[in-house]
């Protein structure tokens, strides 16, 4: 298939960005979206080394930078806003799992980086998501040391609780929730971790402290507040639901009441 791409180009964090338009041809419908971008980059590299193309005014921005790594939907590196949706038009997939069969021959596709105050652009489509690490550093762990822990079967955990905990733990930290939220809130991300640990006896010991510390850090880092629009849930590639936000709110409220 042949496509027109409108791609956000931005040299670095300080530079002003703009859209550039490119044409790509003969894209296989079995290719992934990122493979399509690989092909665009090969084309831009070829134009970059071709003096005739440069003469004709080829774009000098060079290949497009974008974050990607595992390309199987689990590392959470890819982070594209495609036609106005985080991770594009398919449901419950990351950009790397989005396939070109979801588009039609002749389509124009707009590609942008994540849009959230908490995720400043580094270059082109690459953003800085260290804020998510910092939120987890504020309390997204169980305080156990290596060694000296009881046998894994000492504390039985009901099947349903373990499964629900796993639902939250499936978060890949990609940032689609904050990028898609009109308030730029990281609530679903924070909730997924707080809720996942709150469901397990191991995590309950520090539950109150964790909820307060992570919410405070999220606020401090410039993420907005949650107004329950559920856009995050709609765009989460791992289908993490807002029921985890409800559990976070409960944990947070209980903790605050005890203050």
């Amino acid at each position, binding site marked *: 298939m042949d496509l027109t791409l409108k791609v956000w180009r931005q040299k670095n964090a300080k530079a002003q960005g703009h859209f550039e338009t490119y044409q790509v041809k003969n894209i296989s419908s079995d290719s992934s979206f990122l493979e399509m971008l690989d092909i665009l980059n090969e084309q831009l590299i070829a134009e970059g080394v071709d003096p005739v193309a440069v003469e004709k005014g080829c774009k000098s921005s060079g290949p497009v930078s974008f974050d990607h790594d595992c390309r*199987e939907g689990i*590392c959470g590196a890819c982070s594209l806003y495609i036609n106005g949706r985080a991770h594009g038009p398919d449901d419950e997939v990351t950009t790397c799992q989005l396939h070109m*069969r979801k588009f039609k021959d002749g389509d124009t596709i707009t590609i942008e980086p994540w849009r959230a105050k908490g995720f400043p652009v580094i270059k082109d489509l690459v953003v800085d998501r260290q804020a998510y690490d910092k939120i987890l550093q504020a309390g997204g762990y169980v305080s156990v040391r*290596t*060694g000296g*822990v009881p046998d894994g079967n000492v504390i039985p955990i009901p099947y349903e609780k373990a499964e629900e905990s796993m639902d939250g733990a499936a978060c890949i930290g990609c940032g689609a929730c904050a990028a898609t939220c009109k308030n730029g809130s990281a609530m679903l991300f924070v909730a997924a971790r707080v809720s996942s640990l709150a469901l397990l006896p191991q995590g309950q010991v520090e539950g109150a402290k964790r909820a307060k510390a992570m919410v405070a850090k999220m606020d401090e880092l410039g993420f907005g507040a949650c107004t329950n629009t559920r856009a995050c849930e709609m765009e989460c590639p791992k289908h993490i639901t807002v029921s985890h936000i409800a559990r976070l709110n409960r944990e947070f409220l209980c903790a605050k009441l005890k203050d």
Partner: protein
Amino acid sequence: MAEKLISKIPEGPLSEKWTKHKSQIRVVSPGNKRKLEVIVVGTGLGGASAAASLGELGYNVKVFCISDSPRRAHSIAAQGGINAAKNYQNDNDSVYRLFYDTIKGGDYRAREANVYRLAEVSNNIIDQCVAQGVPFAREYGGLLANRSFGGAQVSRTFYARGQTGQQLLLGAYAALNRQIAAGTVKSYPRYEMLDVVLINGEAKGIIARNLVTGKIERFGAHAVVIATGGYGNAYFLSTNAMNSNGSAAMQCYRKGAFFANPCFAQIHPTCIPVHGDQQSKLTLMSESLRNDGRIWVPKNMEDVKALRAGTKKPSDIAEEDRDYYLERRYPAFGNLVPRDVASRAAKERCDAGYGVNNTGLAVFLDFKTAIERLGKDVIAARYGNLFQMYEKITDVNPYEEPMMIYPAIHYTMGGIWVDYNLMTTVPGLYAIGEANFSDHGGNRLGASALMQGLADGYFILPYTIGDYLAAKFKEPKTDVNAPEFDEAEKAVNDKIAKLFAVKGKRSVDSFHKELGLIMWNNVGMARNEAGLKEAIEKIQALKKEFWQNVYVAGENGEFNQELEKALRLVDFFEIGELMARDALNRNESCGGHFREEMQTEEGETKRDDENYMFVAAWEYKGENEAPELHKEPLVYENIKIATRNYKD
């Protein structure tokens, strides 16, 4: 130089070696730990768990990763599970049985003492992860659940849906985050190590590139730990993440660390087949699927043709016309034979013309029997996310039609040579996890990579590194202005400048793809003398062309993914050649290394224990010089060497 290969395996009975060793090695007092600095490169299961554990102990740790967050290391993608000898299933599992299965699965090319230790600490890992809040799968009674993996007749694999690697890594990453918050570990995301710095022959720091600004920076320490994973991406198409690379290992190799068994690469039998030449990477379908999936191709050539022509669907083919070739050839283990065996069997059927997709390079993995026996809901609960992933990629619903799969490069058993303490031949330089060579021999069993990464990082390195550092606490902090750092930084800068200066016509990826094809065709699932010699020549020629005709876009002082790829590819050329050399030298078939000259009449691997029962450790001798081979003999005192038999 032979004296460099001292494995330091402790004396005494196998089951007492580790306990005895721990009691004899030195420890560092808490006050002195604060004076010592350790660099950990890589934040997968090995790196994250090591950095967190070292930080907890009180060392000053700096941890580096190329991703924007430690959580994105490729361990995250491991699907199926982690082995441990808990014997929770009462199926007569034990530390010894896990040890035995691992040695046998590795085709008798791993060290007994290391593997026994791995099996010993496997149980601690499960306890540790549970305590961290890893949501392992559970039975209805609330206790931990297990499933089976290849090469074992017991059920010892712990799992968290099809995302076990993710959950274990998030556990280790959480432990790391706790230490980062406590200030014992400083994290450097988006940094890539470009050289290791030796002072008086000891590892004292690294040179790294800040991937955001392009700045080349120096970091000093009393010891350096390499936890950068494997080098499977030498094949371009693999199940490894796009950024996984072997460069840190190669830098260590060039600075004197021996590189062991480079030819031992694992080809995973169940990957989604290649769709075409626009493909950038291959996706694994977890080995756990072989618990319930049955592998087959049609018995009759007419059916093969009908499938390719689209006149028949796989579900149209009658039961008696299906060749469940693994069950036929290996009745005792059936679909759960080790990976190397399953991969070669798939190749054998496809080579014979029975491959089932357009390219003829695919076999079926079918859940029909399991769905009939257990119901769709049970299968969905076990493998739902894998089925969803398969459907998203291929547009085929695996609940209705069988999956199509084909082998692909997945893991590298070879790696930096280490002694029992996980120290390389360079003092103060350690290698853990997939980056080292130590535990899997010629073939790794499923669910053992996670086990090894966490064993090394949580329970082995934090002890053994103390033995080295105990002699170092009186040494001052490493001076990063030392001439050795000047020299290393200059070499890095020169190399980068040289890459930009070529200004050729071909993209970095075009060279990488070409290298990948040479590797897959000549150093892949079946290897022979002529093909390996040809590979060496072709790689050398390609490398030469690269330095004359590559085009690296952009500049150094910026975020530049083309430069990152080019720097990694330079090292993949070297790894590829080393793999071919090692494969050429190892004139036997064993584990994942199959030399066509050495096979039984049934097409099984034929080892040559008399001549090749050793670890091949290669010493770098200079650019464009042939490396020197050193041999570490493998001694089996506890296991009777036998031909691997998965038939009866």
